[in-house]
């Protein structure tokens, strides 16, 4: 890690060129990869870390090895943020998702360098980043439209006005895909929050760098703290705590491990969490985005109200 970091810093040129001479001697400031809970960047309360390596054997960083307690703290933050976020105008949520895309666009280079360190190629990294940005814009546009598409005014036979609308479920726990470190993360989060839910996301264990940097994007996008909480760590350690948590409404699991899927479904029964498996989706393709993914974490609420009967009168006025 140190080696590549120094190489990069040597390439940096300041505006007036003065620092150029000294740059080779200047020690680069390394980034501490922390987790993201309630709009803050704490370290894991457990004090533990792990050190993922890339294929070349280079250490990526000392990354927080989050604990169950971190998850519980994050759920408290997410639950606290739910009322405000779900109560916002859908239009406003759309603007914030768009802002996230803007911020991501502005930090392209940083993400690409992280993706490269996580074994991506230049072309693949470029593509992944573009897709991630475009995906946010795609969902930004959906925020104030999917309700119209999936609502209904129901023609009941009695004298009532009756309508059904989608409403966010609440707090969603997401185990992000291991593969696409950035695109998978963004693709799993965006439909959930576009619909007004809040979430706690466990980032890719092997490719966690972009998730922490993405948290910085979120933090500068007017997204209220607690709407998205990002943990790093080991799914094997955390999933059962996520699925057993009584204040989580739904769980999304993006990997194709059938024994984990079975145990998620079984344990989710504790409070009848809604369960979604996204292992069949290819995030790189069009199927990786859809308003039906927003609808997965929506409930349908139906409301009735009487209509006054004008006795004996027909419709002739």
């Amino acid at each position, binding site marked *: 890690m140190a080696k590549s970091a120094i190489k990069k810093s040597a390439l940096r040129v300041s505006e007036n060129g003065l620092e150029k001479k000294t740059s080779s001697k200047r020690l680069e400031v390394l980034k501490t990869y922390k987790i993201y809970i309630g709009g803050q960047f704490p370290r894991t309360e457990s004090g533990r870390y792990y050190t993922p390596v890339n294929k070349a054997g280079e250490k990526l960083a000392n990354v927080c090895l989050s604990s169950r307690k971190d998850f519980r703290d994050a759920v408290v933050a997410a639950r606290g943020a739910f009322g405000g976020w779900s109560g916002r105008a859908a239009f406003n949520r759309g603007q914030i998702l768009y802002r996230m895309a803007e911020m991501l666009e502005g930090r392209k280079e940083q993400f690409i360098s992280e993706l490269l360190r996580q074994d991506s190629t230049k072309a693949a990294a470029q593509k992944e980043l573009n897709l991630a940005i475009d995906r946010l814009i795609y969902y930004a546009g959906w925020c104030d439209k999917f309700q119209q598409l999936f609502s209904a005014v129901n023609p*009941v036979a009695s004298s009532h006005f*009756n309508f059904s609308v989608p409403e966010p479920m609440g707090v969603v726990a997401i185990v992000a895909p291991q593969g696409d470190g950035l695109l998978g993360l963004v693709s799993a989060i965006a439909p959930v929050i576009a619909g007004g839910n809040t979430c706690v996301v466990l980032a890719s264990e092997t490719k966690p760098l972009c998730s922490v940097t993405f948290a910085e994007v979120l933090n500068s996008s007017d997204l209220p703290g607690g709407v998205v909480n990002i943990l790093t760590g080991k799914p094997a350690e955390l999933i059962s705590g996520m699925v057993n948590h009584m204040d989580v*409404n739904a769980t999304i699991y993006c990997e194709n491990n059938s024994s984990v899927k*079975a145990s998620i479904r*079984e344990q989710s*029964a504790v409070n009848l969490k809604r369960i979604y498996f996204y292992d069949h989706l290819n995030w790189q393709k069009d199927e990786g985005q859809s308003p039906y993914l927003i609808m997965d974490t929506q409930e*349908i*609420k*139906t409301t009735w109200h*009487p209509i006054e009967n004008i006795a004996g009168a027909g419709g002739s006025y």
Partner: protein
Amino acid sequence: MFINGSWQKPLSKKYFDTINPATEEKLSEVAEASAADVDKAVKAARNAYDKTWRKMPARERAKYIFRISRMIQEKARELAIIETLDGGKPIRESRDFDVPTAGNHFFYYAGWADKLEYAFPNRQTTPLGVAGQIIPWNFPLLMAAWKIAPAIATGNTVVLKSAETTPLTALKLAEIIQEADLPPGVVNIITGAGATGAAIVNHPDINKIAFTGSTDVGKIIQRAIAGTNKKATLELGGKAANIIFEDAPIDQAVEGVINGIYFNQGHVCCAGSRLYVQESIAKEVIRKLKDRMESLIVGDPLDKNTDIGAINSRQQLETIHKYLQIGKKEGADMYESSCPLPRKGFFCRPTMFTNVAQSNRIAQEEIFGPVLSILTFRTDDEVIEKANNTPYGLSAGVWTDKGSKIFNMTRRMRAGVIWANTFNKFDPASPFGGYKESGFGREGGLHGLLPYLNLVNH
């Protein structure tokens, strides 16, 4: 039992009694389906799915379902009487609500069969296969309609098990289905108790489980199908909050509260069993509720004037009595109507508790009987907090004359069905189903189609 289009004796060779809960007299013996019987029914359903039903043009499927609806209307009278005999509900309710709504449900979904391409923008649909359906005893025929109609309209085939204490109208429905000439195996109706239900849930060739019943059993089902590809719809328990604000039309609200909790003896998962009254009007509301309770007639379900019929079973009556004891022990004040009860049969007076605390079990747990818990509140925020403070989320009610307050409350209450200035209304076009531990999936309306379909990308 009705399997593969014909009446078959159970391989188990076992039978059980079904009784009239109003007289405790035996009505008939019905077959108890074993795992082998379930297997037979599933094979029939699979065969019908593969060879007939999925291949049939959707408009033809629709016509069969329309036909079933029409025949339910034709036989409404006998269905209503059987329903009341077997389940104990007042004939007025089975005649005016259960049976017509069941017929209408088939009519509604029949029309969807050849219009599914319009229901889901930018997606095509395919049926799931064989649906295993397990229904409760509180609305036996209506629940059978809620389960079967959308399933077969969307091209699935069905194995349905009626409830142990109320098997008769489902069997009558099987007769109608036979008379309607539905291809053999498309709908199979079997009878039995919990073990039969478990055999359905665990059968490897079933693609979808649809269950209406208790939250406890719903959780058992969710655990049982973990590790399979079975889809599930669960429509489970509830503890609905019914909220009256001081500006509400009080007399209408009182009528709505009475209907909300005493409809069908309170055997309603969406019953308004927690009443929240704004403090300023609590005295008046409670007085009027007591007056209205006194005028309710408890007795012979076959009498047109009866308001409250028989409790469905001895077991359920014991559960209700247990909760009455719990309520008294917890320090709430119990008030029951002074009406006389028939000497035989399972009956319970309409009952309410005042001075109930939010933490009392009678304010937290589903009783499934004619028992109302009354709590008071002062502010909007307080009552929202209390109303939502439950693991359930099936239904809720609000009474106020102020429009903006209605929308504030209906938006903030976490429940799948919200009745504003009304309660316990149902319609085939209106989706029904819960949030949280009240289950998932919707039944009724456009949204009731999705649980029986796969969406396919173009």
